[in-house]
């Protein structure tokens, strides 16, 4: 097994081979079975590309809620060349593999690992059948994975401008990478440069902060050229992309890519602990005043962003950011997904990419029993929910309460417990 990871081309070969096999299997299954391998989202993307190829707006396709960049990127899927319909899936799969490669590269930096050991942990992503499956089915999360991990890689290598561009692009793509901006800026002080063997900043200008420094100079010390550059470049990238897209596609772009997420009512059942409450309140809002099912009670759901944002934007990056950047990014993503008002299984991929950074020093591997228990509870939490979801969706049983309600709260509890473990683990180690 150890020799396997020593052979780099073997690992990447296996990662690519796995995806190629799945791509062909998917094409075969789609052609021969009414149960399609291709994800429904992929049909949305490719439909949108078709609209774009005819000079129309991608938002002509209902439920297209992404940047036009995605539809443009998938334009080759509209070419009438056999096999090109799968272009997007191949692109997402390739992104996956590149993301895995960047994970391995970054692990060498952050954990001072040998390339062989780094590849072993990166394989958690590279050879993960779930990751390969999601990308080859045509879900765009792989693309986001590579963006986020490239952002981390650029930051670790002090490529500030590149990091800014990637951050702006990532936020333009899917908003949530915004949370990484905070931890990266917080982390980016001079002390990091001294441990980094990669390309340095031209001039080392900030000195290590002294705990007794007065507040004003602390703030002044905080404002470093690096931080300013990252902030400006990412803001510029984000603004430029959005302006360009707005000029091209107008309000529908703003509506579907961003505003939709503010106004959406996620009344449908999903993993989020809020889902039952949101169904209740959405139905009450839609009801005529007389038949309202909840008289005069508070709108708790409108406060849901408070714990989520406090944790993922302020507390986690500030408290943990300087100790372990990738670990903090994992904790942030985990908190963001766990406390989100809507949560589906593709969101789990958002934090999966960071696991190779966390696992080497995590108590989950050092105490295999704990690790096993965590994995087991996470799976059981989901399985219980999925069972209730099956009762509802396919058998027509009214399992909203207590079934789905308790299952989503239970799954939330498991996730929060795991988040606690991650936080405790990060405090002890400082690999970067």
């Amino acid at each position, binding site marked *: 097994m150890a020799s396997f990871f020593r052979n780099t081309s073997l690992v990447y070969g296996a990662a690519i081979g796995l995806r190629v096999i799945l791509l062909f299997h998917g094409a075969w299954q789609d*052609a*021969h*079975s*009414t149960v399609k391998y291709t994800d429904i989202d992929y049909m*949305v993307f490719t439909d949108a590309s078709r609209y774009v190829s005819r000079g129309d707006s991608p938002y002509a396709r*209902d*439920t297209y809620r992404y940047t036009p960049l995605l539809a443009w990127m998938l334009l080759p899927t509209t070419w009438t060349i056999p096999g090109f319909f799968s272009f997007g899936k191949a692109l997402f799969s390739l992104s996956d593999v590149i993301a895995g490669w960047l994970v391995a590269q970054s692990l060498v930096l952050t954990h001072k690992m040998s390339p062989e050991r780094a590849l072993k942990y990166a394989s958690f992503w590279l050879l993960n059948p779930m990751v390969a499956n999601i990308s080859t089915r045509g879900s765009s999360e792989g693309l986001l994975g590579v963006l986020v991990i490239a952002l981390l890689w650029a930051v670790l290598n002090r490529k500030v401008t590149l990091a800014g561009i990637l951050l702006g692009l990532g936020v333009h793509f899917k908003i949530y990478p915004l949370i990484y901006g905070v931890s990266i800026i917080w982390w980016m002080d001079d*002390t990091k440069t001294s441990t980094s063997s990669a390309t340095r900043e031209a001039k080392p200008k900030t000195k290590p902060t002294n705990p007794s420094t007065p507040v004003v100079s602390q703030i002044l010390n905080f404002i470093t050229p690096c931080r300013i550059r990252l902030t400006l470049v990412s803001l510029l990238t984000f603004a430029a992309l959005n302006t360009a897209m707005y000029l091209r596609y107008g309000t529908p772009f703003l509506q579907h890519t961003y505003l939709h997420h503010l106004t959406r009512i996620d*009344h*449908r059942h999903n993993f989020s*602990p*809020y889902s*039952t*409450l949101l*169904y*209740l309140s*959405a*139905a*009450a809002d*839609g*009801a005529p005043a007389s038949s309202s*099912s*909840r008289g005069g*009670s*508070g709108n*708790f759901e409108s406060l*849901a962003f408070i*714990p989520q944002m406090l*944790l993922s934007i302020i507390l986690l990056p*500030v*408290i*943990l*950011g*300087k*100790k372990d950047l990738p670990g903090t990014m994992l904790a942030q993503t985990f*908190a963001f997904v766990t*406390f989100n008002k809507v949560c589906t299984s593709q969101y789990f991929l958002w934090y999966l990419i960071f696991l190779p950074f966390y696992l080497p*020093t995590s*108590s989950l591997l050092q105490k295999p029993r704990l690790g096993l228990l965590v994995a087991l509870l996470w799976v059981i939490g989901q399985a219980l929910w999925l069972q209730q979801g099956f009762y509802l*969706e*396919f*058998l*027509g049983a*009214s*399992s*909203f*309460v*207590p079934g789905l*309600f308790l299952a989503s709260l239970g799954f*939330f*509890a498991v996730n*929060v417990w795991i*988040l*606690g473990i991650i*936080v*405790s683990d990060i*405090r*002890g*180690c*400082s690999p970067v």
Partner: protein
Amino acid sequence: MRTRITYIQKPQAPFDPSQATLTPSALAIHNLDAAREERVTLGFDELPGELWQVLKQCHQIHVRWARREGYEAVSPFSSRVSPGLHVFFSPVAGVASGGATDGGAGGRVSSMESVCTLLKKVFDSRLGCENVEKSFITPPILSTRFASTAAYQFYELLPSLENLVTYLQQKHCERDNEECHRRAELILSADSIDINYDSVSHALTMSGYWSKSPTPEGWTETIQKYEGATGKVEVGLLGAEAANEPEEIKMGGLLADVGSDTELKPTLFSFPSRHHPLLDEAEYSVSFSPPTGLHPTMTISMAREALKEPPGGPEVACALHAYLTLPSSLFGDKYQLSTTDDLFLKSHNLVALRAVAGETDLEAPDWFVSRWGSSWLLELDTPLDSDQGSEDWNVTIPLHLRYLHPSASGYRSVSIPWPVVFWACTAEDGTKMGMNPFDRVNLGWEGLFGPRTMFYQLHPSPLNENNVLVEELKVPVLTVKENSGIFQSKVIELGTVAVIVLGFLWVLWKLALVVRSSGIRPQERQGTGKRDKAE
């Protein structure tokens, strides 16, 4: 005011001349076993004020209603609509095409709202009709040149016309005119009702169709001539004859103009017809295979007899279709149904989605859908050889339910009318369907085809003991007990908030431990033993 009453007898139904006796002032019908159509035409000046106030703003308005129960639709009245109330409406030109939704178009605003007000007054005060913009859907219009299709469409499953009867008795009948009251009340037993108004003829026609008499003995009534010279009462006692051309219908029997004719006049005439019947055995039935869950599949089962292509020359092309009228709680995924994937289509025995209109949002819950629902025209596949096999041919249509309001039981029931299923065939050039004295258009589905299309209607054959052409779906919803039980809305709210606050505090606690033991600065590298001590 003109009245036309037509009795249609089947060939095997008995008829004796003594069953219809004409006097100078009336025609007496006695125990006649027949289907019956009555059509009343009213001029503009004969309408009550509140009616013409609304009608004068309409370019056209057509109402179609069919009862929930199955009934026989005999030729030439063989066309059908799904059970319920269908309204097709176009405002007068000038206010029709969009743009002026703001204050400028006062006339439009009033016409858009007054139509709903009137419909509620006439049919049911609880109709989900707020105004035309909010409640009506806009069906696709194939050709503006032959714009017989109305711009707006409304539907609701209205089980009874009691309100219409009361309205007619109060607004139209004079207090002591018992005959008028009786004729209005007869509407309660009608199988279908049509109301038409258009601004070209400025006339309102209302017709009812009865497949059989409400009493088992048959029709017994005395049809009086109108007092005064203005009205006209025509009565026909007819039966279908074998036609010479496939697009024609031939009727023979007796006609009388009550009040002017002295005797019943024999007649035999034929005309090209849009709608044709199929054999009695050409039946279909509709069901939802359990468990329906949140994604019910509608199954249309057709008898083998129904799958035989209607007769016609070699140039005539025919295709089998279903037209679905779905209330907003149930909808199709237009992307799923308009696929060109043969595997999917074959597995459902579908050919293609030909037209769709209305509420097709894939995510909205029912309470955010303001319009009544959606309509779908699907072309259905037929077996290569319809003679082979004896079992029914099943077409399946995958559909999806919207989230509905919570209820105390955890379930809500929605009623889905059966679709109409028919063959559509091209007719020879030059066929003029409008020559038909019994022509029927504005049914929703027929306007989706060219003007020279012939339709052969399959007969719905209810499976259930109630004989209804409506399927009930049990939809799971959130259980909310208003005053008792554990799962009141308060418990869901407080439970969620408590769990989230506890979870949040737990993470805060873990973070506080981190801050206490190591602050927020990076750790000095002190080997791996350090963390274990801190645990």
